[in-house]
């Protein structure tokens, strides 16, 4: 009996000590974690307009304050609904996204909602009177989710650039959508429509692009991931069409 009591006391003390240490550490580091995550996501948005940042600047290497500066000065954030109507900050906060800006919307959670109820983040980059619309899309790769930011010109037909990320695609194969800067670079200047004006989105073609107007080369050995990117682009951009139509002059 004395032995059992000793075991319980030991386990209890150990659990309390461990819980205190970890809880303390989490609380202390939480602001830094939040800041790092926000900057990380902002860099992904900026990576989509890589071509506008200048040749030697890489979005992923930008210092934190410069990223924040670009967001403060040149980017306006909107959250729109399924019909393309902008949603107020309060409404976004009501759904539990503290801050109420596009950057606070959790696309993973949104994807689980019925389409008609989803929130869609839009970032508008404005420089020298030129407007670029950056949208966030999400889909499935081979093993897990993939997502990306697509920058589109204000003709709503020409892609300015793209950036992709993933949870667990195979390194060296599917993961190249993120790791190989050459893959997103191919999207620059692609059209979302074929020459007859039908919506095609941008297609990642296995074995090389056949219609250079709206197709890019796939990655050999990563067919499922590339098909996932194609599907994500097709469905994702389509959902923003009502918004594009509403801002189109």
């Amino acid at each position, binding site marked *: 009996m004395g*032995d059992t009591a000793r075991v319980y006391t030991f386990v209890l003390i150990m659990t309390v000590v*461990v819980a205190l240490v970890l809880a303390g550490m989490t609380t202390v580091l939480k602001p830094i974690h939040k800041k790092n995550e926000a900057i*990380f996501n902002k860099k992904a948005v900026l990576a989509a307009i890589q071509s506008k940042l200048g040749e030697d600047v890489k979005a992923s290497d930008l210092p934190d304050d410069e990223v924040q500066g670009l967001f403060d000065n040149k980017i306006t954030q909107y959250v729109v609904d399924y019909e393309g109507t902008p949603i107020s900050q309060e409404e976004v906060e009501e759904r539990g996204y503290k801050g109420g800006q596009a950057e606070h919307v959790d696309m993973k959670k949104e994807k689980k909602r019925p389409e008609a109820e989803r929130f869609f983040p839009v970032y508008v980059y404005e420089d020298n009177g030129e407007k670029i619309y950056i949208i966030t899309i999400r889909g499935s790769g081979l093993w897990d989710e993939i997502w990306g930011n697509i920058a589109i010109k204000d003709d709503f037909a020409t892609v300015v650039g793209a950036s992709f990320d993933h949870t667990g695609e195979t390194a060296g194969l599917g993961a190249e959508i993120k790791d190989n800067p*050459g893959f997103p670079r191919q999207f620059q200047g692609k059209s979302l429509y074929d020459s007859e004006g039908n919506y095609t989105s941008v297609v990642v073609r296995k074995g090389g692009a056949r219609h250079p107007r709206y197709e890019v080369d796939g990655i050999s050995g990563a067919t499922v991931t590339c098909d996932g990117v194609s599907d994500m682009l097709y469905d994702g951009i389509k959902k923003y069409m009502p918004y594009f139509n509403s801002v189109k002059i």
Partner: protein
Amino acid sequence: MAETAIEKKEPTFAFGKKERKLLTDPLNDNNPITVQVLGICSALAVTTLLVPSIVISIAVVFVCAFSNLFTSLLRKSIPKQVRMIVQLVIVATLVTVVELTLKAVDYDIYKQLSIFIGLIITNCIVMGRLEAFAMANTPWKSFLDGVGNGVGYGVILIAVAFFRELFGKGSLFAGSPIEMKIIGATPEYWINTMADGSWFSWYSNNNLMVLPAAAMFLIAIMIWVHRSWNTKLVDIS
């Protein structure tokens, strides 16, 4: 009480021949991967690139050393019935500390490694050393043993990652500021296989190298090399 009396005769932080052996043994005669064949799971999973492998190695050295230290400090008060659970809690706590720290210090690397940091908990080397060594030795010796085993594991991990990244991706240290592009099909690489008159026009990166199976072959070759060089290992096991 008799046991403690004997231990106290040695100075606590002695660093003699015995202690040096604790550090060097896991590097050669008792390497966790090539001799004990422990920790293979993570050696297969994380070694596609050098940078994550180096980070994981540092994390394992840290976790191994300090879990050994704490377990050894508590070894006389840990109730026998729950000792495995206690060890697991110590390891899990340290791993979480590593994860939280990495998330604050370098978010990009944290994103890259994501689940693999958590998987250190299941690394057989860590638990193995706790059971086999820390439960029966003084804190200082256990600490050294932890460092030795962590480094012994890390050295193999980094060696495997070196070959996998070089032949699978054609680069070294990808994703870090000192990224080296060695061989590939664009002018960015030192050896451009597509350049006119290149001697390497036959070469292309080996996609097998990025799959876990490649690590299996590489580790097997390392075990082979290790045993032909250190012949006293041949008849063990």
